[in-house]
């Protein structure tokens, strides 16, 4: 079960989601992707996409305006 972290702090709107999608495509089932973000759009559109695609998602607020989105590929 591999674990990869994607640092998207300071990235503008669609970038975190696009990067997360590309990264997750490369991963195996059971792998975990952690996306660090500070964009309010992303803390909603990344989990929405990941859940609709059938993965397990957890969002952790690690600080004011900063979130870690943990996606487990299913």
């Amino acid at each position, binding site marked *: 079960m591999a674990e990869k972290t994607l640092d998207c702090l300071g990235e503008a709107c669609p970038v975190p989601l696009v990067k997360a999608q590309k990264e997750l495509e490369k991963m195996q089932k059971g792998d975990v992707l952690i996306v660090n973000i500070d964009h309010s759009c992303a803390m909603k559109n990344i989990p929405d996409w990941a859940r*609709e695609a059938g993965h397990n998602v957890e969002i952790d607020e690690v600080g004011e305006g900063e979130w*870690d989105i943990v996606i487990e590929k299913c």
Partner: protein
Amino acid sequence: MSENIGRIARSSGRRTQMSDAQRKRRKAVQIITGAALIAVIIVMAFVANQTNPKGAYIVIIGTLLGYALQRSRFCFTAALRDPFLTGGTNLTKAMIITFALYSFLLMAINITKFGISLDSVDFSKAAGYIRPVGFHTALGAFLFGIGAVIAGGCASGTFMRMGEGFLQQWVVVIFFIIGSMIGGVAAPIVQFKSAPVVFLPQLFGGWALAAFVQFSLLLILYIVADIWGRKKAGGR
């Protein structure tokens, strides 16, 4: 298997760097600042009222709009861009809902004001923005769409993100203003005098048919967006 991600999330290095007391204090500082900001806004409403009898209401409505946009992460740019960039259409559908709802309410207001017959509709007093349509609309909208995706936010999105702390949007707004000034010179070149004002109820000979066309189109677009979103999600 999914207990694992809970464990990973909570042990993420950055979270444990601060003590809980520190974290609580930082949260409290933000909330207290927020409360102070409410006071500032109330003062602003009061000041507005000195010059404009409706000023206080406008200040409050504007504030609540910003609040609602931020709180729901609403973004028109994403609604238009995501179907192609990420395959997501949730915002697109929500945007279509705003059109349907607002259309309905504006229609209600206008019918109440002018009656169901269109003879007495005074465009300058009608609720809403009724403007000439033509080449300028197409070109302007096209340029706006490109600009909004590049800048990472549209008009409302820019102001919302300024308040959220995105310094990039503070730069965007400066050039938005400059662009507006440039537009003041460039726009009239493509705004032909022959461009007509087309009010759908007049075009379709009455509110009933216009409403039918408008709401049907919106419904169709909603369904298309829904199907598109499902197709894109399932494909992964």
